[in-house]
């Protein structure tokens, strides 16, 4: 693989809890995560709510400050960017959010919303040229140019998410972080959005970090998938291989839990082995974070923290594989 577009090394994002005074426990939302994404590549990031996947995405676009570690974009460390350099970085890296209802300013028309990034960065000379570009973007995402004067609340969820996508595309970014862009949408619309994102990638060669809690949806768009549990990556590998032959017990449980739209398969399925629920992120278990729910947990899991290691061409953080 050539030079990656984004490289994350030992990234940590912690949040302090509680008030201003005294000592308070920290939430280790992202705990020592490393990965890289190549040009023209999509990395899927999967995990249950509270596993830190959204925080990871938000740290990369600098909404949250990292507590430690480095993020390189096109070889340049971006953790301490400021001023002009930060603004240039913003042109290259965009984000699509989860809730299409909250992520559009309800007091602005669709035209104003999509034009805004161009105004901020001074792209295209006049308002007229910008409007032409807006119409072009609306058509790219399957909406009509005459929607330009309408307000967000007049659109359905899927249409709104497409408006969000065209806003993110307005700056011709090289990299987009999709923070659960489909989980608030209907099934038929989810597939639309996934196909749209894929088509954009084919046309422009853009890279994605695609965050979701649904492994099934992620598999279609991702080249590689990373699975997160309580702030750490537990498995990272090629999407088809990971999906058909999961190695980490957590990935296995996650896959087994997804209900499959096929009654015969569902009837034949064994009950899910995973027990209990996510432990509190304030008080992580010692060693492997998953050991409290893992059917294969042994003594070693409580003592040592497993690191990501190469197993059959992919990376797994589990002592089952040596």
């Amino acid at each position: 693989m050539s030079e990656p577009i984004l490289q994350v090394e030992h990234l940590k994002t912690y949040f302090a809890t509680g008030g201003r005074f005294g000592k308070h426990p920290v939430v280790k939302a992202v705990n020592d995560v490393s990965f890289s994404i190549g040009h023209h590549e999509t990395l899927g990031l999967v995990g249950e709510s509270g596993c830190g996947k959204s925080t990871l995405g938000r740290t990369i676009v600098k909404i949250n400050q990292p507590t430690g570690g480095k993020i390189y974009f096109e070889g340049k460390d971006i953790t301490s960017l400021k001023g002009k350099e930060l603004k240039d970085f913003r042109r290259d890296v965009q984000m699509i959010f989860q809730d299409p209802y909250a992520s559009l300013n309800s007091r602005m028309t669709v035209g104003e919303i999509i034009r805004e990034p161009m105004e901020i960065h001074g792209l295209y000379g006049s308002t007229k040229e910008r409007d032409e570009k807006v119409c072009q973007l609306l058509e790219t995402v399957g909406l009509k140019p005459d929607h330009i004067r309408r307000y967000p609340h007049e659109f359905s969820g899927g249409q709104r998410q497409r408006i969000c996508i065209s806003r993110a595309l307005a700056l011709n970014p090289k990299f987009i972080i999709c923070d659960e862009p489909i989980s608030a949408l209907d099934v038929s619309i989810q597939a639309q959005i996934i196909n749209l994102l894929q088509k954009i990638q084919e046309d422009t060669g853009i890279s994605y970090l695609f965050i979701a809690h649904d492994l099934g949806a992620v598999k279609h768009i991702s080249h590689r998938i990373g699975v997160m549990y309580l702030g750490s990556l537990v498995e990272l590998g090629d999407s088809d291989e990971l999906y058909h032959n999961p190695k980490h017990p957590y990935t296995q449980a996650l896959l087994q839990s997804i209900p499959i739209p096929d009654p015969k398969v569902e009837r034949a399925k064994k009950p899910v082995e995973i027990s209990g629920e996510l432990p509190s992120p304030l008080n992580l278990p010692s060693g492997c974070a998953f050991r409290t729910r893992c059917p294969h947990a042994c003594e070693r899991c409580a003592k040592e923290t497993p690191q990501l290691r190469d197993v059959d061409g992919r990376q797994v953080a589990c002592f089952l594989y040596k």
Partner: protein
Amino acid sequence: MNNLELKDMEWTEDLFEPLDSSEQNSEFIAMESKTFLQDSWNRFKKNKLALVGLVFLVLMILMAIFVPMFSKYSYDQMDMTALNQLPSAQHWFGTDKFGRDIFVRVMYGARISLAVGFSAAIICLFIGVVYGGISGYVGGKVDMVMMRIVDIIYAIPSLLYVIFIMLIFGSNVWSILMGICVSSWVGMARLVRSQVLSLKEQEFALAAYVLGASTSRILFKHLILNCIGAIIVNVTLMVPSAIFTEAFLSFVGIGISAPASSWGTLANEARGLIESNPIQIIWPVGAICLTMLSLNFIGDGVGEALDPKKK
């Protein structure tokens, strides 16, 4: 649909020809496109009380502007031949103990009272929105310091400020205005801060941040624009309270002094004659009451129109 109907119809193959794709319009939106203000105005119009209030207020403002301009009497023109007259064709509201026309004086008073009310509200609006907005958006230590200052200002009764400022600058309209503003912008600042605090975590604000928008753009174009509803409601309720404060101060004699007249001074003057000429106090008090009432109706109407869920 029942199946008998189906039997009656002529069924031909051409009914089952494929539909031309140009006839499919799945991105169709039936809802009429309306801006936020149009939408709110339509809701406001449905509230009859608020509409009556608005009409009354507009009339009052027009009269306050034009009556003193075109009347043959002026507010301080005395006429010793017509003291304490009852309402008549010449003097619609009668005359006071110096023979001045009360109608003109009430309308002249309306100028001062309404001007004080509206300018206080507008000044507080600007200070409060900027202060509260910055405090809420920047957060952290800045917010902490800014809000403690607000707390201190809030802790001292507003009358004290007014009296203090009047001692220094003398009793005129400007010091009353200043006094009212000093104490009442903090309410607006607190309101805007709390709104901004909750809005800034919303995804549309984060999206603007990720797009590289400057702090002032995020604050004013995105956050403040989205709490405009609450701000407008607050302003419409701030106007009557400022008018009332001014009237109260003038009534107790520390506000605007004669011969200039505000509704408060007029009421104060008429107080002395309440036994012999009780009708004289009705005019300024009535003006205050009706204006208050209509402003409050308007405030209610605006509140409902801007936030239809809150009823």
